């Protein structure tokens, strides 16, 4: 090193350039996290303790905690969270066990059904249930019943159908790790299928189940869309924030409710992270993947149950698509495109806006997490650790709270940040920082797998950091970058809670339009608009699958060749 510096002065310049570049890699994304995540969160906290006279105090808390509405919403959120979690984890385990531990045909159908809820805003389950079980639903119309789906039960079903796929994926990821040889060893030692399940499968899935429980709990208590569409009088914390802020224009009280929603989410998220770590510590990877042998006594009931649950998920979304083409639900079932002629709420302009915003969020977001990963790799541990912690924090913040924090921060003329208010860039930012953690962790997985020798080899050939990043690291990480990109794009297309406060009459997004159409009683048009969003997201998902398959093939080619 010293010889290089002494022998060639221009080399030293290059080294310093590298250092500068590394600092920029770390600095820019960190600054982004500070301005677009940490600062707004501080603001929302400060506003929650700002009193009417401008001083700080706990008067807002006293006021909120003194109202019956708040306690009712809190109780509802906890009840709903607990009930949804219990059912989702139970049913999710059945499907995950069916997919990974049983032998039956048509698993790809179940896998497809599991993906469906990711394609649409979380209010689609509510819409579907209204078409099916609402006052003007199929069941009431043809069975002559008088069901009222609004309220606890409707919301419970909607939340379960929305959260269930997440539970399946998390538990499935825990089950897929186990090694076929372990089961064979147990079999040869004399363990019956039931004992193998009890002694190997359940313990292996333990942390997955715990994880799934906390994730579904967080999803449920922070979700806004289904609660707004089908919750009816059953108020929960997320709808309570909305009514404080939009209904009563009471920002400080909204901030208090936001902080109160933040608390259980942070706790649940913290425990979930610890559980994930334990799971990672345990997983040695499977030497030989488990392939279930047919066992009719187990496969038939498990397969039937799995299909039944998956069918419910698909049915509720499918009925939305179907209803969007039906002339007059539930009376005249001739097919028509008339609901697609949307004029209210800005028509389709919000769809194009959403695609545009999602592209910005995905492109900018992927670039930022890549830079951050690159910077962290070269940063000293004392600096890297707190930044890494900051980078995984956003997942603990409910979308409603982040959205509220944004409007409090960016709709205030106190700072030049006001210039961003009402722009597509700001909505892209809230979407990116809302989903920052997942995108960051995806890319970090790639960085962890990146062999240090690869960088060192390029470095010893004389490549600077910029060259290494572009020519060596980025291609290696391509699959992770692609999945981070599409993840951010798809989430931005459908998210509602974080953006509901940030849309303006001039600038609105697809999920908010769907909510407005539903509010206006134009349920069929809401369904039509939802269908369009699902089409875009499904196309994105397909594009990702095709790209990933190409990576897979390239990876195999280099692996064998």
């Amino acid at each position, binding site marked *: 090193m010293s010889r290089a510096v002494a022998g060639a002065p221009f080399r030293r310049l290059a080294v310093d350039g590298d250092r500068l570049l590394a600092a920029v890699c770390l600095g820019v994304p960190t600054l982004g996290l500070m301005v677009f995540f940490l600062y707004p969160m501080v603001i929302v906290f400060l506003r929650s303790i700002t009193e009417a006279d401008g001083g700080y105090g706990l008067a807002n808390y006293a006021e909120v905690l003194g109202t019956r509405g708040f306690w009712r919403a809190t109780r509802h959120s906890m009840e709903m969270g607990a009930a949804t979690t219990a059912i989702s984890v139970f049913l999710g385990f059945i499907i995950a066990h069916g997919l990974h531990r049983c032998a039956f045909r048509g698993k790809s159908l179940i896998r497809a059904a599991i993906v469906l809820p990711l394609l649409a805003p979380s209010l689609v389950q509510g819409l579907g249930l209204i078409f099916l079980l609402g006052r003007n639903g199929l069941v009431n119309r043809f069975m002559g019943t008088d069901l009222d789906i609004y309220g606890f039960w409707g919301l419970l079903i909607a939340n379960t159908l929305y959260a269930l796929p997440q539970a399946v994926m998390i538990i499935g990821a825990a089950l897929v790790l186990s*090694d076929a*040889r*372990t089961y*064979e*060893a*147990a*079999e*040869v*030692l*004399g*363990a*019956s299928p039931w*004992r193998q399940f009890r*002694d*190997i499968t359940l*313990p*292996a899935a*333990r942390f997955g189940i715990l994880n799934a429980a906390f994730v579904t709990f967080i999803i449920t208590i922070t979700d806004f869309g289904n609660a707004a569409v089908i919750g009816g009088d059953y108020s929960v914390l997320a709808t309570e924030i909305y009514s404080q802020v939009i209904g009563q224009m009471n920002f400080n009280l909204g901030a208090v409710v936001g902080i109160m929603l933040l608390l259980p989410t942070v706790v649940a998220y913290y425990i979930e992270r610890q559980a994930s770590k334990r799971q990672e*510590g*345990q997983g*040695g990877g499977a*030497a*030989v993947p488990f392939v279930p042998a047919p066992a009719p006594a187990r496969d038939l009931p498990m397969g039937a149950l799995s299909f039944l649950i998956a069918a419910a998920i698909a049915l509720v979304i499918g009925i939305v698509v179907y209803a969007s083409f039906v002339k007059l639900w539930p009376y005249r079932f001739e097919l028509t495109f008339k609901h697609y002629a949307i004029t209210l709420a800005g028509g389709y302009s919000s769809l194009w806006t959403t695609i545009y915003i999602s592209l910005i969020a995905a492109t900018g977001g992927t670039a930022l997490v890549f830079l951050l990963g690159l910077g962290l790799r070269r940063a000293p541990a004392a600096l890297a650790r707190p930044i890494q912690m900051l980078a995984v924090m956003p997942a603990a913040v409910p979308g409603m709270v982040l959205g509220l924090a944004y409007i409090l921060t960016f709709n205030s003329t106190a700072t030049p940040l006001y210039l961003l208010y009402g722009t597509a860039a700001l909505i892209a930012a809230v979407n990116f920082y809302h989903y920052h953690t997942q995108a960051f962790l995806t890319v970090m997985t790639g960085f962890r797998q990146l062999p240090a020798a690869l960088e060192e080899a390029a470095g010893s050939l004389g490549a600077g950091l910029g060259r290494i990043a572009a020519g060596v690291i980025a291609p290696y990480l391509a699959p992770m970058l692609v999945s981070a990109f599409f993840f951010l794009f798809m989430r931005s297309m459908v998210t509602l809670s974080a953006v509901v406060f940030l849309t303006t009459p001039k600038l609105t997004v697809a999920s908010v339009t769907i909510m407005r159409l539903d509010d206006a009683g134009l349920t069929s048009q809401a369904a039509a608009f939802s269908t369009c969003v699902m089409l875009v997201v499904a196309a994105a998902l397909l594009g990702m699958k095709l790209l990933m398959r190409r990576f897979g093939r390239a990876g195999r080619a280099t692996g064998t060749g």
Partner: protein
Amino acid sequence: MDPTRFLDVVRLTKKYGTFVALDDVSVTVGESEFVCLLGPSGCGKTTLLRVIAGLTGFDAGDVRLDGRSIADLPARKRGFGIVFQSYSLFPNMTVAENIGYGLRIRGVPPERVRARVSELLEMIRLPHLADRLPWQLSGGQQQRIALARAIAVDPRVLLLDEPLSALDAKVRADLRGEIRRLQRDLGIPTLMVTHDQEEALALADRIICMNNGTVVQAGTPEELYLRPATRFVADFMGTSNLLDTAQVEALFPELMASRPAEAGVRYHACIRPEHVGLRPDPEGIGTVRTVTFLGNLRRLEVETPAGSLTVETHGSVDVPEGSHVALSVEPRHCTWVIDDMGTAAPGGRVS
């Protein structure tokens, strides 16, 4: 009951679609015998072991234990012990729980399980690891615990599926000794699958050499090494010079006397490198091309007008590269083997 046929695999055939994985295979293991199934990857040895364990079904033949057919018995009722290459300890159980698992399944009272587990931990010399979890252990430790888990239940047959292949050379040698000692002490009939001929030579009472789903030759390690029946066995069991008839006539005509005269069969003379005599001779037929120093011996590539030979010499013969040498082979060191590789698909050469 014939004690040499405690485990008796009779004319077993196993197909995967049109691919014949095991073709009319018969194998026996005696009451306290250590038998190795040796062959290149894909020869069917692991399939055979899995069929015996009851983990894989088969199409024709029978598997008998102590004179009775166990073909319809599920794996968990056979009372065997098995050890896999990948250790396969139960990740959520401690070492002691892993070893005691089979006993607990059999409903053995907890205090007896505890006693047996500590006895086994002593036996594998890891008593201090009882409360560890598998991921906290090295590969060698995990494999010894897997071995203890398999023998804890006093298995009627011990099945080992490449148990040493995932380990480092040093650990592998240690564990090899351990397996041999335990098997001798306990007298458990043992069948081990391996592709490593050295391992098979060191461990087995008897080696069953397989290729392309059939048994090519079975016998003691000495028999297989010194008297291979076919070219495949000769090639697989260490290094050898395989000379066709024309080469033998040109180089060592005195060996032709022992050549079997069966019509329509191609024979090769198998001569191990250490059995080729060599002395410096300016008029000699061979020219030393390369000399590789291997510590206790030297390996020479010697070129002759009839092809090149590999020769191993101990000690002090001074034959630098380029020098001329005379070659000789004692008739008792020449084995004529059937050429089974010209017609069948060539087996992978692992040596």
